[in-house]
């Protein structure tokens, strides 16, 4: 009850505005509205043109009618996207749209899952235990995160080849299992704020450190873990360069559709179907985001680099 009253007060202080402020807020609102419209505009373009015929689209470009709705909405373009959009890899193997969708899913889940698991292990130990080497590990994490090393692509490729993980499904697991990046920083902060008293009682009952970690600490960290997972999910799902460079035989929706686009210059009639494919590729990510947007919006904070 008391909390509720307090919250209401908090809102009024943020919303209370003087006369001069009201004018400023009005102007900013107008700018925001225009900016928001500009961000929505591309989707209008995409939806309209994904429903056009190939020739209609080409004629519309010439006539400056790309922002006009199609004469007749061709929903079959979306079916064609699933059947016709394909990538040919260097072995001449053809990979179709549903396979790309499947690749996107397993690649993203493996890569992100490995990363969140690894960093929760390292962050938890560094946050909750005292041992020799702890400061060094902390230093490693911050050092490797803030030092920009440019141009390691060649070295990375030769390393992956030496390890034999280049272009294999093992790559997202091993490369993803990184415990000292951004996730580490966020989780270390989170774990160090969790109380230790539950752990003590587990020890009294004869439970071990693993029990504490999996049964007590990880469940409490769930909102934080979900946020990190979703954030990384979005970036990884949309990453096309890593896939182009290191996983050429497993095109995902992002890297695959990029390759499709490169081949379109030879056949511009297929643009509408390609647009339909792009629209489909957006659906899963928008779905994931809208399911978890509240968690993301309320849980995401980053403090200073010093621990």
């Amino acid at each position, binding site marked *: 009850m008391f909390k509720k009253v307090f919250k209401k007060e908090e809102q009024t*202080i*943020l919303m209370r505005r003087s006369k001069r*402020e009201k004018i400023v807020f009005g102007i900013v609102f107008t700018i925001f509205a225009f900016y928001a419209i500009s*961000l929505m505009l591309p989707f209008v373009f995409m939806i309209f043109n994904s429903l056009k015929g190939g020739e209609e689209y080409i004629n519309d*470009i010439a006539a400056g009618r790309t922002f006009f709705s199609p004469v007749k909405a061709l929903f079959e373009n979306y079916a064609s996207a699933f059947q016709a959009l394909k990538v040919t890899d260097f072995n001449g193997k053809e990979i179709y749209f549903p396979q790309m969708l499947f690749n996107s899913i397993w690649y993203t889940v493996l890569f992100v899952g490995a990363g969140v698991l690894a960093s929760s292990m390292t962050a938890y130990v560094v946050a909750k*235990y005292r041992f020799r080497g702890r400061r060094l590990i902390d230093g490693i994490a911050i050092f490797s995160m803030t030092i920009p090393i440019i141009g390691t692509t060649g070295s990375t490729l030769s390393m992956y080849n030496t390890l034999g993980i280049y272009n294999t499904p093992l790559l997202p697991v091993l490369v993803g299992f*990184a415990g000292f990046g*951004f996730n580490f920083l966020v989780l270390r902060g989170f774990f160090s704020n969790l109380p230790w008293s539950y752990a003590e009682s587990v020890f009294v009952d004869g439970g071990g450190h693993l029990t504490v970690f999996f049964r007590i600490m990880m469940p409490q960290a769930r909102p934080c873990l979900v946020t990190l997972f979703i954030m990384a999910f979005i970036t990884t799902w949309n990453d096309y*360069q890593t896939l182009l460079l290191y996983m050429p035989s497993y095109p995902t929706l992002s890297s695959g559709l990029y390759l499709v686009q490169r081949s379109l210059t030879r056949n511009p009639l297929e643009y509408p179907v390609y647009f339909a494919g792009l629209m489909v590729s957006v659906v899963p990510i928008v779905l994931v*985001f809208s399911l978890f947007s509240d968690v993301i919006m309320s849980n995401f904070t980053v403090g200073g680099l010093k621990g």
Partner: protein
Amino acid sequence: MGIFNKKKNNIRRKELIFIWGMLALPLLQWLIFWLGINVNFIKLAFLDARTNAFTFSNFITFWNDLTTPDGSVKIALVNTLKYFAATMLLINPLSLGIAYFLYRKIRGYKVFRVIFYLPVIISAVVMVECYRGVIQPNGIVDMFLHMFGRSIPPEGWLANFDHATGAILFFVVWTGFGANVLLFMGAMVRVPAEMLEASRMDGCSAFREFFVMILPMIMPTISTLIIVSCTSIVATTGPILLFTNGGYNTTTISFWIFEKIYGGGVSGGLTSNYNIVSCTGLCFTLISLPVIFLIRFLMEKIPVVEY
């Protein structure tokens, strides 16, 4: 007493096994995929591409390319500086401003918050395709420009040596706010409302309040984000691949590197490029390190308000 000590040692031993058990795999991963790749990277910079013998010739090639008036590395460096300026002078300050108005709950802030985040969740492949459609000659922007008696050149901005980089920079700024806005907001929300209430009672204006209270309190977040954005500018290639594939003088350092390794770009890629790429990367790393350290040093000079 002896038994007690033995028991205590046993407990500590179990604890240490747990600690290093948790850390072992992530540390091994770091040793291979961070340290190993970077050591290999430095080694590659000093090896001859054909004979694999120790040499400084890569550095000479790099220097020649950098000092030739129209050398590809020089163009890339100039463009990278433009991206750096756009991020520091436009994206970061504007994100802070946008975050502030959303934090003050400007009308429609819930909707704006989601729309402004769209560029983060939607793949760059999609956003670029949309933007390209918007700015093509005869497109919606062109029509708008016609009202002012101007027009987009017939080949389009993206196929024009004078305008291509500018058009991509605009895209980068236009889509660049999302993640930062969210993080800045996350920090602002944690500023205690009673403090704002008290200062408002003392007649502090809202905008003065922003500079003397909110800004110092969220400084750790700001400095972390500035450092991270410095690092990411030199490390990511942005949407250049999707727009021009490096043509029309749009390369940046990281794109130049990507293209040399991946190939298919303007100058193609080969295994024999690993050495010159590593060398160029090493030189730029050494150039950018002091800059990053200086920025970090300056950011840490700013007194942090504890609350």
